[in-house]
């Protein structure tokens, strides 16, 4: 039997320990900004995800048929279920709604370099608010979350769906042509765009605009000043004005040096209507998060309202941390107790219970465990109970402390605790 499934994997204790730290830090960051965590079902109806242009190809979703013949999908993203939740169960609650999640999403193919079918996503959704300040809050919260998981150089690339949509609208072209243009623009494929435009029946001025836009990105200030030199329609100019204000606020918050602006940032998720952004780890070229505004999404469920959110890709964060060799500082708290003689078992047990009460993780063995075992278990300290002395070994630097003793009275227990705390300092 081959019980191996491609694209999914077991998460083993060492990685899980690391994940727990990441989960904890992300959850704390979200909670501090008053986003409340929800869990939506793993199974959703296919209808929830169908009919949204550019969201996800049906072929990329995992499908399950239930006993009534209804087709279900393993949740390919979490934004949709939360939008459903907001428009149904929370229809009448005061706005804005602030939700967070930390869960898995399933896709049979994805373009990110980690080719996993089951991905862990942590994100927030802010539903029922369309102020520019909510957009700013999202960016600030994303940077904060990235810093919380020790990403050294968070970089947020920002775009705006309205820019390209409004430029496209003035062109008055067929959907097929529009999609082809969008493909070329999202590839920044100036060469092919130039060729393709030759055959198109649009004005020379529009052609020049498209060719200028395709290679325009970078620091917000520079990009904005170049955008202002292009003769756009009034509609487009309005979007640019709004973006100017947005970047100004980010500057006032001292966040602007972490921001780049790509007016033609086009997301795979077609549901974004305004702000679009991606978060990168600048020092290792890894995509960490993506998000944006989706003001039309909840309409589907009978209550149209503005919304904005983002999702962090937890596996990408782990990949980044592996590359940077960063280990989260934590207290040395995993302890193994070995005892030399039979009659010391009772005392070893007593010491273990004493330390467990203090919050340490303790295991007891009679025989001396070798380095392989200690390394595999990720232990920090080894305590050896001999006949007349106790030795406490710090695994990471092999330093040993000795304590003389006769019996394990309270005074000795406290001495051991002092030594451990000394090591931890």
């Amino acid at each position: 039997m081959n019980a191996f499934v491609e694209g999914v994997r077991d998460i083993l204790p060492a990685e899980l320990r690391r994940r727990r730290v990441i989960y904890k830090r992300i959850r704390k960051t979200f909670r501090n900004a008053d986003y409340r965590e929800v869990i939506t079902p793993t199974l959703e109806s296919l209808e929830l995800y169908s009919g949204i242009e550019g969201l996800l190809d049906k072929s990329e979703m995992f499908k399950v048929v239930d006993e009534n013949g209804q087709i279900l999908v393993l949740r390919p993203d979490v934004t949709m279920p939360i939008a459903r939740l907001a428009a149904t169960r929370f229809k009448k609650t005061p706005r804005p709604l602030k939700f967070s999640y930390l869960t898995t999403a399933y896709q049979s193919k994805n373009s990110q370099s980690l080719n996993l079918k089951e991905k862990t996503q942590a994100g927030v959704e802010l539903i029922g608010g369309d102020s520019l300040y909510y957009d700013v809050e999202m960016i600030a919260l994303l940077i904060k979350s990235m810093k919380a998981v020790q990403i050294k150089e968070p970089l947020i690339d920002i775009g705006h769906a309205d820019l390209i949509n409004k430029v496209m609208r003035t062109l008055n072209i067929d959907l097929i042509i529009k999609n082809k243009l969008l493909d070329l623009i999202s590839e920044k494929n100036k060469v092919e765009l130039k060729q393709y435009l030759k055959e198109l029946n649009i004005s020379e001025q529009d052609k020049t605009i498209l060719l200028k836009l395709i290679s325009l990105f970078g620091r917000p200030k520079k990009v904005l000043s170049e955008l202002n030199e292009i003769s756009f329609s009034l509609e487009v100019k309005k979007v640019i004005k709004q973006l100017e204000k947005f970047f100004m606020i980010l500057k006032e918050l001292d966040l602007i040096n972490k921001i780049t602006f790509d007016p033609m940032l086009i997301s795979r998720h077609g549901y974004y209507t305004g702000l679009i952004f991606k978060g990168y780890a600048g020092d290792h070229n890894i995509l960490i998060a993506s998000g944006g505004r989706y003001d039309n999404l909840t309409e589907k469920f009978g209550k149209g309202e503005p919304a904005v959110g983002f999702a962090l890709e937890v596996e990408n964060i782990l990949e980044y941390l592996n590359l940077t060799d960063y280990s989260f500082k934590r207290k040395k708290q995993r302890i193994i107790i070995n005892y030399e003689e039979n009659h010391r078992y009772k005392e070893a047990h007593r010491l273990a219970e004493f330390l467990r009460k203090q919050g340490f993780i303790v295991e007891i063995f009679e025989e001396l465990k070798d380095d392989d075992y200690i390394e595999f278990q990720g232990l920090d300290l080894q305590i050896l109970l001999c006949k007349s002395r106790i030795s406490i070994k710090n695994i990471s630097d092999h330093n040993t402390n000795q304590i003389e003793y006769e019996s394990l009275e309270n005074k000795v227990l406290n001495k051991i605790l002092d030594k451990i705390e000394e090591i931890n300092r």
Partner: protein
Amino acid sequence: MNEIRIAMAKGRLASQAVKLFIEAGINISEKLLNSRKLIFKVLDENIEIILVKPADVPIYVEYGTADLGIVGKDTILEENRDLYEVLDLGFGKCRFALAGLPQQKKSLLQRKVATKYPDFTRRYFKSKGEPVEIIKLNGSIELAPLTGLADTILDIVQTGRTLKENGLVVYEEIKDLSARLIVNKVSMKTSQTEISKIIKALEKAVNGG
């Protein structure tokens, strides 16, 4: 300053690419073309060159292991990766074409197409709405119609001499091809200064200084 890693397709494209880089003022030693080494540091610049098989260039670039790549448009189309394609380098010019024996059989229920580019072929015929059977070959594609393995081939054509010598004709020209500069989507943003500098220098060299 981030170091920029450039993946080049081994072979003819690499030697032309090296020439172009030298014209652009980026001093890559021509020695790398005759060496068996696969990684080269460019002195004075924060650039590293890696030499890989053509089909692997888009893979290295999509994964971000290389920030830039130089490879033929044929390979880019076949690999169909998520990346930026920013510059036509002007060399390695050829085109995708459908070809076969002069008397094309019209009564076929389904065309059999032999090609080195099965994925592009599949997408091409899908967009035309024509069902075809695709046979992936690894070389000497012209042999397929001659031996009856397939009735049509989809291949790159440069001068058309190989086709002519084997008694084949072009049915349809599909697309002009040439060497392109591709960029990883994340690097483009995180190392914008360094990458823009290289793109600008190359663009200038392509347009004749």
